[in-house]
């Protein structure tokens, strides 16, 4: 039972709030009392060395992993926990199921369903989870496939698609759920260099034209700088430094940030 965290956040609070979130794998602490707010329509990039906990931020928010301590709020109400007798207790699967659709995620390895076509991949969840009719779900899916430039490949199975095409379908699949917040987990890391651009273009247009709230873990420093409202630099499970892209890339204050940026920018 947790009574240190409120059962609801006051009106006007940010869309997503991490409040003292700790996540351990055995003896290893990957998130260490993390506090992080994401505002409506904000585009936040998370950067940092591997093992710094940046992907874990997305995985715990998607409820793929349970957290050990702290609370994550979405839309003013707790996500990882639920109210009980004046305090908070860990959420049941039923409670999670009622709220998880507010969040969408795109994976590094796409994770498309190989036995379904591109269209079926996008139709499945809206029909099953949101209860849309087939016509509505297909219309929505087709629009999104058009949006990501995959309309003509809607009847292809994933194995027939290139990595970039698969990732664009995966983006459409996540969007079809109309999530309040989109999580992008190193979406270009598994792609060949020549197709990275097509995926970035999709994200770029989503950001500029559709005003989505997005949290993006990325190694594409240039892209993060171009597109983000805010950039967080993670180090050892904590935010070592955050700020606007200009500030973080142009005038980093933290030693770790400087070292990291040197290393990756030199390599590029």
């Amino acid at each position, binding site marked *: 039972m947790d009574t240190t965290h409120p059962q609801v956040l006051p009106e006007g609070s940010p869309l997503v709030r991490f409040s003292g979130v700790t996540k351990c794998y055995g003896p290893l602490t990957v998130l260490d009392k993390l506090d992080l707010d994401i505002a409506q329509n904000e585009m936040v990039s998370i950067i940092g060395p591997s093992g710094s906990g940046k992907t874990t931020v997305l995985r715990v928010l*998607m*409820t*793929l992993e349970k957290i050990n301590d702290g609370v994550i709020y979405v839309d003013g109400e707790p996500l990882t926990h639920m109210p009980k007798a004046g305090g908070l207790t860990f959420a049941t*699967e039923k409670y999670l*199921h009622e709220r*998880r*659709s507010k*969040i*969408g*995620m795109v*994976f590094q*390895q796409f*994770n*498309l*369903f*190989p*036995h379904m*076509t591109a269209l079926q991949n996008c139709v*499945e*969840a809206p029909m*099953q*989870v949101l209860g849309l009719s087939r016509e509505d779900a297909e219309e929505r899916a087709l629009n999104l496939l058009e949006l990501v430039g995959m309309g003509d490949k809607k009847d*292809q*199975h*994933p*194995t*027939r698609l290139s990595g970039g095409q698969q990732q664009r379908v995966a983006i459409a*699949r*996540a969007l079809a*759920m109309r999530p309040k917040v989109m999580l992008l987990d190193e979406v270009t890391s598994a792609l060949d260099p020549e197709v990275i651009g097509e995926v970035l273009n999709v994200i770029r247009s989503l950001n500029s034209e559709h005003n989505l709230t997005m949290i993006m873990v990325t190694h594409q420093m240039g892209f993060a700088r171009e597109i983000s409202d805010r950039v967080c630099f993670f180090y050892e499970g904590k935010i070592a430094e955050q700020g606007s892209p200009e500030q973080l890339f142009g005038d980093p204050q933290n030693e770790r940030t400087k070292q990291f940026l040197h290393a990756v920018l030199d390599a590029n």
Partner: protein
Amino acid sequence: MEWRWEFAWEILPRMLWATGNTLLAAGVGYTIAVVLGLLLMLGQRTPYRLINMPVRELVEFVRSTPLLVQLFFVFFVAPQFGIKLSAWTAGMLTIGLHFGTYLSEVYRGALEGVPKSQWEACRALNFTTGYTYRRVILPQAFPIALPGMGNYLVGIFKDTPLLATIGVAELMHTANALGAETYRYLEPYTMVGFIFLIISLPTALGLRRLEAAVARAQGNTRH
């Protein structure tokens, strides 16, 4: 001793009738194995140690001991505990359990063969567990399980002759009886061999085709 065609021709009807029994035994035994295998697999996957440990041990034990000894055990021991089973029932249950343990491993391997990331994708799309199994995991696990399931279908067919030792009147039993009656073993045993070959070769070939067809239908030339 020379091969006598007229003798072979004479015993052919009885051999064919017994072949029917062999196929029936294999079919019934396999059906039991498919269902039992599923139960054993689920038993091993439950989070309760009180269930999954004994089931795991049972599967290990049955898998590593000879079917022939198991048949004798059931045949001789069950009556001592007042369990009266016909030779057919005893045989079907034993062979079903034996191959059920194999199939439970096939199922387990197939489920584990579906990448963990598929589970995560389903969670990200907010599918329920039941729906995830039904629409995403099982359709992908099935083609993985199919070759193993096919192998054990042919396997159970080829192990049915062991049922002769406890008096199930299948093909081998009939060949034994014919040999004992006529003192001619060349024709009955050779015919048993060829009948097995004639049935198992096309079956194996058909199963390979089926695997390919399923893989194609799933748009899935597996990585």
